[in-house]
Structure formats: structure tokens, C-alpha cells
């Protein structure tokens, strides 16, 4: 059936491997950025005045109501123009690559989701936590860094896992802006070898395996975090299937 030489197969495999690395790099960078931005936005918008809250609502509504693909296109096509507009001549020297555009777009979009999650988690912490910390006269930094955020992160973890796997499935969109990622390589290989099933199914399975694997790790992390905690509040891992 297959009329491929070993060398050809090797070549395609190497190309796929390189594509997979690019996809992984894109995904991890975007997620890390989105996470940092999301937490920052959550802290910046929580219990602030009406204007800040309204601005946050608009940001969230826009980026949760618009396809990520369009955000990617917008950043990629319009990126240079925006940079020149923002920084003048200095902006002209920055070249917008598909990779950079992808990272920027994905992290902007998913920062909104993560901020929503973290805000929800902080909102749902028992009020007593704030009061106890205040009673102990803890400085603000300690209150947020050592008391509130760790607990909020535990609450937000299942949702973060969710964002993680959903964002992973959207990273291939950047290939439509010209990034030579895993899916683009698979498409080339499938076209050249006339073996679409092998390459596309293998690619899909790679995605599924990666997300399954990281999910297992996340569940372990949850168990770890729950150890010796929350005796009265049922730990989330109990309902995890």
C-alpha cells in the first residue's frame, strides 16, 4: 500500500516532530502569559470602583464573544500597524511573526477566561479568611500572597485545567496565520504522501494523549493540595471522575 521510502518517512516524521515542538512552545508560552495576565487582571479589577468593573466586563464580553481565529488574524495582520502607531519608528523595527501574533492573541483571549475564574474563586472564599488576616494585622502583600491567592488557586484549579485543555485545542488555529506547527506539517505530509488518515489521526491522537497526560498530572496535583486540608468542605477530587 505505502509507496514511501524509509528516508521519506523519516523526513516527514522529523518535520512532524519539529511542528509538534513549535505547537508545544506556542501553547506553553501562551498559557503562561495568559495565566499571569489573568491573575493580574483579577486582582486589579476585584472590589474596585464601577468604572474598573465596567471596563473589565467589556473586555471579557468582547474576548469571550469573538472567535479566537479573528483575534489571531487581527493581531497578525494589524500587529505591525499597531506597533508603529504605538511606538513610532521604533515599532517599525519589530517584525510580527505568526508565532508572536499567536502568543499575543491566545494569551489576550484566555487571560479573560482565567481572570473570570480567579475572580470567581476569590469571591467564593469565606469572608472569615479576610477578617482573620485583618485581625492578625497582616500586611496586604502577605494577605494576598500567602492567604487568599493560594486558596483561590486551589478553587480555580479545576477550571484552569479546563481552560488548559480547551486552549490546547485552539493552538492549531495559528497555523492559519502561517505558523509551521504540528497541524501544518501534518497537512503537508498528508498531501505529499496521499496518506491523510495516517497523518491527521496521528496528530489528533498526539493532542489527545498530551491533554490526557497533563490532566492526570493535574488531578494528582489536586490530591496533593487537598492533603490535610478542607476536612469539612468536600475536596474537589472526590467528584472528579
Amino acid at each position, binding site marked *: 500500500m505505502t509507496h514511501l521510502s524509509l528516508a521519506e518517512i523519516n523526513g516527514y516524521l522529523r518535520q512532524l516532530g519539529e511542528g509538534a515542538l513549535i505547537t508545544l512552545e506556542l501553547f506553553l508560552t501562551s498559557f503562561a502569559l495568559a495565566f499571569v495576565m489573568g491573575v493580574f487582571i483579577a486582582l486589579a479589577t476585584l472590589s474596585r470602583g464601577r468604572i474598573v468593573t465596567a471596563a473589565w466586563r467589556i473586555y471579557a*464580553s*468582547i474576548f*469571550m*464573544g*469573538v*472567535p*479566537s*481565529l*479573528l*483575534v489571531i*488574524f487581527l493581531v497578525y*495582520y*494589524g500587529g505591525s*500597524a*499597531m506597533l508603529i502607531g*504605538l511606538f513610532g519608528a521604533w515599532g517599525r523595527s519589530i517584525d510580527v511573526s505568526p508565532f508572536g501574533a499567536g502568543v499575543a492573541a491566545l494569551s489576550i483571549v484566555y487571560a479573560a*477566561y482565567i481572570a*473570570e*475564574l480567579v475572580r*470567581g*474563586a476569590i*469571591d*467564593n472564599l469565606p469572608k472569615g479568611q479576610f477578617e482573620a488576616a485583618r485581625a492578625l494585622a497582616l500586611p496586604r502583600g502577605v494577605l494576598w500572597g500567602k492567604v487568599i491567592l493560594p486558596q483561590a488557586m486551589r*478553587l*480555580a484549579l*479545576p*477550571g484552569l*485545567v*479546563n*481552560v488548559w485543555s*480547551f486552549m490546547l*485545542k*485552539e*493552538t*492549531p*488555529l495559528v*497555523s*492559519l496565520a502561517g505558523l509551521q506547527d504540528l*497541524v501544518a506539517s501534518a*497537512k503537508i505530509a*498528508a*498531501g505529499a504522501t*496521499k496518506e*491523510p*488518515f495516517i497523518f*491527521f*489521526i496521528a496528530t*489528533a491522537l498526539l*493532542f*489527545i494523549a498530551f*491533554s*490526557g497526560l497533563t490532566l492526570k498530572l493535574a*488531578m494528582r496535583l489536586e490530591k496533593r493540595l487537598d492533603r490535610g486540608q478542607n476536612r469539612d*468542605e*468536600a475536596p*474537589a*477530587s472526590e*467528584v*472528579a*471522575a
Partner: protein
Amino acid sequence: MTGLPIDLTLARDSLPALLVGLRTTVFVVALSLLFGLALAFPICFARMSKLRFPALMAETFVVFFRGAPVLILLYLVYYGFGQIDALRNGPLWILFGSAWGCAIVALSLNHAAYMTEILRGSLLAVPRGIVEASEALGVSQRNIFLHVKMPLAIRYGLKAYQNEVVSFIKGTAVVSVVTITDLAAVANGIFEETYDPFTPILCAAALYWAFVNLVRIGFDLWGRWLDRHKMDRERAPVPVLQNVPTRGRLLRQIGRVRGRVL
């Protein structure tokens, strides 16, 4: 630079084309939601069946079509099934012979996989006692499903369904890769003609935003109607679904859920 440079004349001129694209997007969405939901029922029954083999098949289906990115599914169906010569003369060619057929197949399978899990979670959330009460009244299994389980499951799963539909709509923006000129494709085309990086994309984004929020409002009204007529919020809270995978915007509930919301 003050604000984003939107060329108002271009926006006005390209609006008719964008609306045609929007109509295509609405068609793609409507058809896939319909077929996906219809597929989800038998798959869900198989998944919940006590028989080993159907349950395993259904689970495999769900894992694959939920776990694979939509873009790959589109490529797989379009370049895969669309190129099989053996299909060319069979009846399935109606589906796989056209870009539309391939797009609807790929998207429906993806949606069906998500809906299977939402349906399963909602059906499992129906309290056993209520099913038993119907059994004790001598109501047949079929009628229990139609008149007791499904009405309750719809209430329990509505939020998850809404999230899924909303993010599914946004996800369909990739169908242009199989040559369907949906809203995103039209905007892209205008960009390639005019090299205006902002106007067409932003206009398309606004239309997507309006579409998505219209759907969201529709779901909200539906949910409120179900709640007001049928249920008392204070005393009989709708159980928040655990273990129901949704993509997109489930996250507001997260603090309340405290469980995995995959």
C-alpha cells in the same frame, strides 16, 4: 494614533458581503447543532448502556472527537474521506463529495461528542427517587424518559448546553479551510483585497459578537422561562453539573461548583 483606524466607507461597502458570510455561518451552525444533537442521543444511550461493547465504542468516540482540535477534524474528513475513491460512487458521496458535506460531518461529530457528555451528566443528575416514583406509578420506561427524565435533564443541562453552543459557534470560524466562505472567510477575503488589517476583521468580529450574544440571550430567556414556570429556585436548586465537560464559559459558576468542570 487615536483608536483603531476603521475605514467607515469600507465598512459600509463590505457590510452586504459580510452579511452573506454571516448567513453562511448561521447555516453551518444550525445544521451542525441539529445533526450533532440528534447524533448525541444514540451515542449517549450507548455510553450509558450496561453492555460493554457499545459503551466502549461510545466512549472512544467521545474521547476522539472531543479531544481532537476542530481544525484537524475538518482536514481529516475533507482530505481523508473526501479522497477515498471507493466512496465516489456510493451514496455517502453526497456527504463527502462536497465541502459543505465534509464541514457539516466534521462539526456535527465534534458537537455530538460534547453533547453526549452533557446529556449523560444531565440524565445522571435526575434524582433516583423521582424516577422510582414514576416507576411506582406504573409509567413505562419510555414515558419516564420523555415526561420525567428529559424535562428535568434539560433544566439541569441548560447552562452547559449554552456554553457549548456559544463556543461551538466561535469554533466554526475555521470552516473556511474547507473552502466554505463563512463570515471569517469573507472578512479575510476583504483584507486580502484591500490590505486594511482592521476594518473587515473588526466588522466580522462585531457580527460574531452580536450572533453569540443573541444566542446567549435566547438561552437565558429559555432558562428563565423554565425556571419561572416550573421550578422554585430557593427550595429546589438546580444541581450544578459536575463532571460535565463544557468548553468555553462555564467559569462563572466555578466557585460554586468546587468540582472538576472538565
